Structures are given as C-alpha cells and as structure tokens.
C-alpha cells in the first residue's frame, strides 16, 4: 500500500493527553491549525457511566496502554539482560483521548523553588560531597519564579482545589508553608476532609508540623474556568485513580483543554493513529509517519512537531527517528535517554482503629488527603544524614476498594480463617500514611532501545536500566521513622510502622507510580540536555518535546502540575518567540 500523504498543517501533535491538549488549545486559539494523532480511541465522560467496577478498570487495566502491543523492558544494571514487563505493574501509562490524564488521581503540585536549582542549591549549602559520586543531579535551566505564571494558568484552567500557604511572600495559615510563593490563591477551596484526614491533621499539628490539604483537580465546588468551561463538583465516590470521571469533576483533558481546541475549528483529532517516526532532514522535522487501524501508513507533514506522548514514547520516538545523540553511560556522552528517574515509595505506616466506625474509607477522591512538607526536598537539614532528597508525607482518602486492599491478619496470615476474620474487622477501620519520595538521577540510570524485544509493529521496545541506590534506601528509612510517630499520635489499636524499606531490586510487579521521568531532559547545556527552557529541541528547532521526560530528576511531588506548567511554557515559546523567528529560541 502506498503511503497516504496528507496536506501539511501548522502543527502535528503526537498523542492527545494533557501536554498535547494544552498546546492544541493555546495554538488553535491563536489561529494555528493543529492535528493530534492519538494511538487509542476517542473517549469522554460518556464512557465512564458504568465504570465503578474495580475488576474491569483497576485490576484488568481497561484504560491503560495495552502491554500485548507495547510495553517496556527492564534491567537493574547494564550487566543484566533486560526482560519485558509482560503485564503492566509498577507503572500504568495511558492510551486514548485524554491519555493518562483521564485516569490520574488529580494531585496537582508545584515543585519547590529549590527543586529547579537542585544541584546549585545543595552544593551551595552543603558542598559538593553531599552527592554520591554516581549521582547526576542537575538544575533545570528554569526557575520557579519563571514558571510561576504557567503554574497559575494550569491551576486556573483545571480548577485546582486547595489552600495557598504562601501568596506574594506572605504566609497563609492552613496552607503549605514550604511552597514557593504564589501570585494568588487556588481557584477553588480545598475539598472536604475525611475523618481519617482530620485525625492525621490533629496528630501532625500536635507534633509541631503544619498539615494542609493536598491540592486537588477533583473540584470542591462547581467551577467555570477562564476558557469558559464549566464543570460540576466532586461526589467523593472514590473512583479516580485507574478510572475516568463520569461527572467531569476531575480535571482531565477531555473536559477542559480538548473541547476548547475543538471549538476553534482549527483542531483535528485522529484516533487509532499510531505514530512510528518523526521525519526530518537532519536539521528540521518535516512531519510524522503513522499507521491507522487498517495498517495503512500515513504521512502528516507539519511546520512544527510536538512530541507530546508520554515520558516513555517521547524518548522512544526520538531514538527510533534518529534524532539527537543517544546517551552512552560509559562515556556519559549524548543526551537522549539520560537521567531516567522514578518515584520512591517504601516509607509508610498502617494503623487499625478498632473502635472507628466512621472512616468510610470507600468514600473520597483521588486527590483527597492531608499532607505535611517538613521532610520534603531540602525543607530539613540534610547535614550528616547520608542522603539527599525527601518525601511528601500524606494521608490519602482516595477511595479504598476491596479487591486490592485486603491486608494480612495480625498473625501474618494472608489466607485461611484468621485472615477471613481479620479482613472483616480491618477493612473499614484501617488507614495509612505514606511518603512519596524523590528519585535522584544517576549515571547508570537511563533508557535506550531494547536490542531483543519489539512492539506489535516490529519496532524495538524502550529498555529501562534502573535500580534502587543506597541514597534512596537511607532516605526512605529516615522518612519511615518520621511517619511512625504521626501514626502513633493518631492512637490506633495497633499499627505497622518503622524505618522505610525498599526491596533488594526494583520490582516491576507491584504498582508503585506512573511518575517516570527523564530521557529528554531540559537545561542550558545542548550537549547533555535535549530541550531548552521553552522545551524546544536543541538539534531541531521546530520540534518541541513536553512531558515528565523533561525533568532532570524527579521531585517528591506528583508531576502533572509541573508538566502542565511546562506545556503552557512551550505554548508561550511557540507563539511569542518561535513564530516570530522560526529558529532556535536559545543558543547553548
């Protein structure tokens, strides 16, 4: 079959999630014609009317990337042979209109000012020796202050419910005292706090901490955003993570930015369009090649290519298309694939409250929770601790469902009569506190193309080389010891707590986080980074790459707020810089 060549457009976007959706809304409004190519299907609220089904969505993964067609391979070091994740496990990448933005929880954070100048901050304060010799922490090439207006735009667009802690340098009671200064408060007030959340708040306050509500994309009140999009408030049904929202209360691309792009008349979404290659002449991209559901190959020429799929495929598409210099861990040369990082869990406490009849743990929302920030980033003194980094400690009330939330009995049994009786007693009366922690970058953690395993189209899978390092083991041990006294102060009947632990090797089976980062990192050095501070590719000025793949290392907070801010930053770069002078916005 001959390739079908489509008429050229101003912009082609790969994917139709948050990043592509935001760029499409902004660029289409400015009169640019945008085509988005999405490998999955069209979908929206209508698809989720009957989705309160834990087996179908949470266990059998209906909304996620289909591992039968494409997965990743994993090895713990370069001396090991990588094996495929035959079932999705540790992470759950999305597919379909809205991408993973449809099935996220909605926790919407801003990274700390110090996160963006990570290397400089730690070296200035503690000296160079604070970093292990194989760690490769970097500054982002952008500061919090530069990014602040874009964060605000994302929060106003998606209607984030929260309580500011710092506005224009002034502390606001009830918010996070450690956050970067905001230009204004959240657009909507915090969500209602659960009984367990209130217990956590009281305990944390008693220990001298400053608990605050987790910023949430699950609306606390009905809201009309600056684009004129109105949405209803959250019903606290508890079906967010792994599910779509049937009432549109969860900020997701299908109920926010994509409708805005569609109503301009300048936007076209093609679904079941699987992009395999970015075409280029070595200096500029000329378009993309994709396959439709019938196997027909299409060429979509464009003046600008937006690499807006997801962390994994942003990197993979560059490698498959031979764009940029692949990273080589032996020489540490090259940029594409460098600084893969993840998210570190392992520090938690679980408490059983025998007299508690009103936790109602099945109610809640994806981002409903109370957090403290005292042990996150460099909010505490790291001198003599033996690690860098920290974690966001929180109690989440995000809807506990029974298939995936049955715990061992006090005697340790996981089946049998004791277990049966135990789950009857504990299911409704158990709550937990956990730290979501940083994942630093290392020389030996990176992604490249797998030499053995292919996707359903015959292209190499992405290979991840990653493991837990001693720094993170010390970090989670420390965080676990900070969590235990909070749980104790909540006065449970019994509790499981103590120093946080990580398994001997990174385990791909148990779900941990979909917050994979790096591989197309941003910065100010064209030899070691892939994009500049407008997310414009150094080597190809008409290519913009946006996603958590831009993060030089991962902070402890959920990434979507920052990914959203970077998307608006890229739109600004295209509309106000690139369009005026279609070349490199920065010179390295």
């Amino acid at each position, binding site marked *: 079959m001959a390739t079908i060549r489509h008429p050229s457009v101003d912009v082609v976007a790969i994917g139709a999630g948050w990043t592509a959706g935001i760029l499409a809304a902004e660029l289409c409004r400015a009169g640019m014609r945008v085509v988005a190519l999405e490998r999955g299907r069209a979908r929206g609220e209508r698809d989720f009317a009957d989705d309160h089904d834990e*087996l179908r969505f949470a266990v059998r993964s209906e909304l996620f990337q289909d591992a039968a067609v494409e997965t990743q391979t*994993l090895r713990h070091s370069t001396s090991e042979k990588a094996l495929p994740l035959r079932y999705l496990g540790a992470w759950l990448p999305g597919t379909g209109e809205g991408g993973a933005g449809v099935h996220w929880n909605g926790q919407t954070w801003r990274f700390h000012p110090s996160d963006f100048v990570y290397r400089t901050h730690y070296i200035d304060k503690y000296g160079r020796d604070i970093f292990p010799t194989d760690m490769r922490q970097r500054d982002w090439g952008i500061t919090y202050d530069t990014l602040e207006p874009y964060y605000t735009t994302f929060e106003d667009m998606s209607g984030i419910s929260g309580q500011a802690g710092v506005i224009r340098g002034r502390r606001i009671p009830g918010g996070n005292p450690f956050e970067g200064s905001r230009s204004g408060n959240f657009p909507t007030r915090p969500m209602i706090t*659960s009984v367990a959340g209130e217990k956590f708040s009281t305990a944390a306050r008693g220990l001298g901490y400053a608990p605050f509500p987790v910023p949430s994309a699950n609306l606390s009140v009905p809201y009309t955003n600056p684009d004129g999009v109105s949405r209803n408030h959250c019903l606290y049904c508890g079906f967010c993570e792994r599910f779509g929202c049937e009432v549109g209360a969860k900020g997701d691309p299908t109920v926010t930015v994509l409708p805005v792009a569609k109503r301009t008349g300048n936007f076209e979404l093609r679904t079941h369009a699987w992009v395999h290659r970015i075409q280029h002449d070595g200096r500029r991209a000329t378009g993309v090649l994709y396959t439709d559901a019938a196997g027909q190959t299409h060429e979509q020429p464009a003046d600008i290519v937006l690499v807006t799929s997801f962390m994994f495929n942003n990197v993979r598409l560059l490698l498959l298309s031979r764009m940029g210099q692949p990273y080589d861990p032996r020489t540490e040369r090259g940029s594409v694939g460098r600084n893969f990082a993840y998210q570190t869990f392992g520090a938690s406490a679980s408490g059983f409250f025998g007299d508690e009849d*009103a936790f109602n743990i099945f109610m809640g929302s994806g981002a409903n929770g109370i957090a403290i920030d005292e042990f996150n980033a460099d909010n505490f003194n790291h001198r003599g601790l033996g690690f860098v980094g920290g974690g966001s400690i929180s109690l989440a009330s995000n809807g506990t469902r029974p*298939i995936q939330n049955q715990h061992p009995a006090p005697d340790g049994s996981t*089946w049998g009569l004791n277990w049966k009786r135990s789950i009857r007693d504990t299911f409704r009366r158990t709550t937990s506190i956990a730290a979501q922690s940083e994942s630093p970058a290392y020389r030996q953690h990176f992604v490249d193309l797998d030499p053995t*395993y*292919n996707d359903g189209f015959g292209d190499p899978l992405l290979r991840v080389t990653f493991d837990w390092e001693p720094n993170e083991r010390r970090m989670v041990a420390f965080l676990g010891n900070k969590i235990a006294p909070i749980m104790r102060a909540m006065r449970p009947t019994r509790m499981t707590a103590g120093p946080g632990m990580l398994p*001997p090797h990174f385990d791909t*089976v148990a779900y941990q986080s979909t917050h994979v980062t790096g591989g197309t990192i941003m910065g100010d050095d064209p030899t070691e980074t892939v994009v500049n501070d407008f997310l414009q590719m150094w080597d190809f000025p008409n290519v913009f790459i946006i996603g958590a793949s831009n993060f030089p290392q991962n902070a402890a907070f959920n990434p979507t707020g920052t990914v959203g801010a970077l998307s608006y930053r890229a739109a600004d770069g295209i509309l106000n810089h690139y369009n005026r002078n279609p070349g490199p916005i920065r010179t390295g």
Partner: protein
Amino acid sequence: MERFKKGISRRQLLRGAAATGGSLALAGIASGTLAEAQEASTMPTRLRALTREEAEIVGAMADRAFPRDGSSPSATEIGFIHYLDEQLAGGWGSGERFYRQGPFVQPQTSGHGYQLSLIPREVYKRVLPVVDSYARSRYGGRSFTEITPSQQDTVMTALQNGRVDIGLGNDPNGFTSGSFFTMFMANVNEGLFADPIYGGNRDTQGWRWVGYPGDPMAYGDYYFTVFQHRDDDYQVQPTGVGHGME
C-alpha cells in the same frame, strides 16, 4: 429515575434498621440471603475452561483460603468457581493485555515478574493436577479434595512457600508454586470482591463480609451528601454496577 428511587428507599430502609437494631439489623439481612446462597450451587452446571476435576480441586483450595465460618459462607458458596471459570475462559485467561513475544527467559534476579509463555488458563490447567498429585503422594493416594482440612492447609502452605515443584522453572526468581499461589489468591480476592456481574461475590456476600457498599451510583444521592456527614457509620445494602438489571 426508577433506579434513583430504588437506591434511596433501600438506603433509608437500611438506615432505619441500623438506627433501631444497629449491627444486628445488618446481620439479619446477611443471614436472610445466606439461605439463598446455600441453595445456590457451588459448581456451575457447565464449565467453560476448567474440567470438573480441576474445578473441584481449585474450589477446595479456595474454601481453605476463605473457609466457611459459622453461618458465613465459604468462597465457593459465594461463587468462586463460577467467577474463576468465566475469567479463565475469557479475555484475562486467554492472555489479554499480556506481552507474549519471545524470547522467554527465566529471570535470574528478583523484580521481573511473570515471564512464562503460558496464558493464565494454561497455568491453572498445568498446576492444578500437580497440586492433586502432590496431595496423593503425601496422603496415601487421596486427592486434594479428599484429604482433611488440616492436610489441605499443609499442602496450601507448601504451595505458598514455593516448596511444590510445578515444573515451570528451577530458579527462585522464576515461576514457583509460590508464584502460582499469589496468582490464585489474587483470583480469590477478585471472586470475593469483584462486582457480582462477574459471577463471584454472589448476592454481594463478599462485600457484606468486609462492609463495602459497592457502587455509589446505586444510592442516588451519591456519597457527596453523605460525605458532609462523613463521621456517620455508613451502612447500606451493597449494590453493584449491575443494579439497573435486577
């Protein structure tokens, strides 16, 4: 709208009952439906994936994992075999969302997860006869279904600890009997707590055991109204996503 009213009236009924009789009222509802459950079959009349013998073995295992306790039913009494057989015959059992391209390699380190070439249905059909012959070899030729509950528990523990050779690899990081036991227990949890439309959790007895209310859509008022009284002890007759089809 019909559904809405139904949800409300049910809940009000429950609330009223809970107000007068507390947990006893709930226990009354549970034992009322237990009679129906006991009448219902533990074995499907027609099996789609398992043989009758395999179904009996895995059913006996499930009834040790979630045994009858006084008046509360066991796993098979609330539909575990119905659930598992449907799952093994359907998409999951047939390898849906399973990356099945070779080469297949037995992992030499931890953390790589499932690496067999077999689809889940084949795993069950391969391992269940091994469980039975393991029982026969230890207990005078008697099947797993014929040995005593405590002997069954001994076999279950051996499986869980990876001590039964299921012939699918010899590396502790490969697929051991412990890996199979984990798969089995995940399916037990699903059979107990998945929405009743899948054949298990019959009459929401699994949900009632742990106090899970099911699909909030069924209650008309959602939780939002309730969440404003979130310090109430929320008790309802659980309902699944199939509530409109009743």
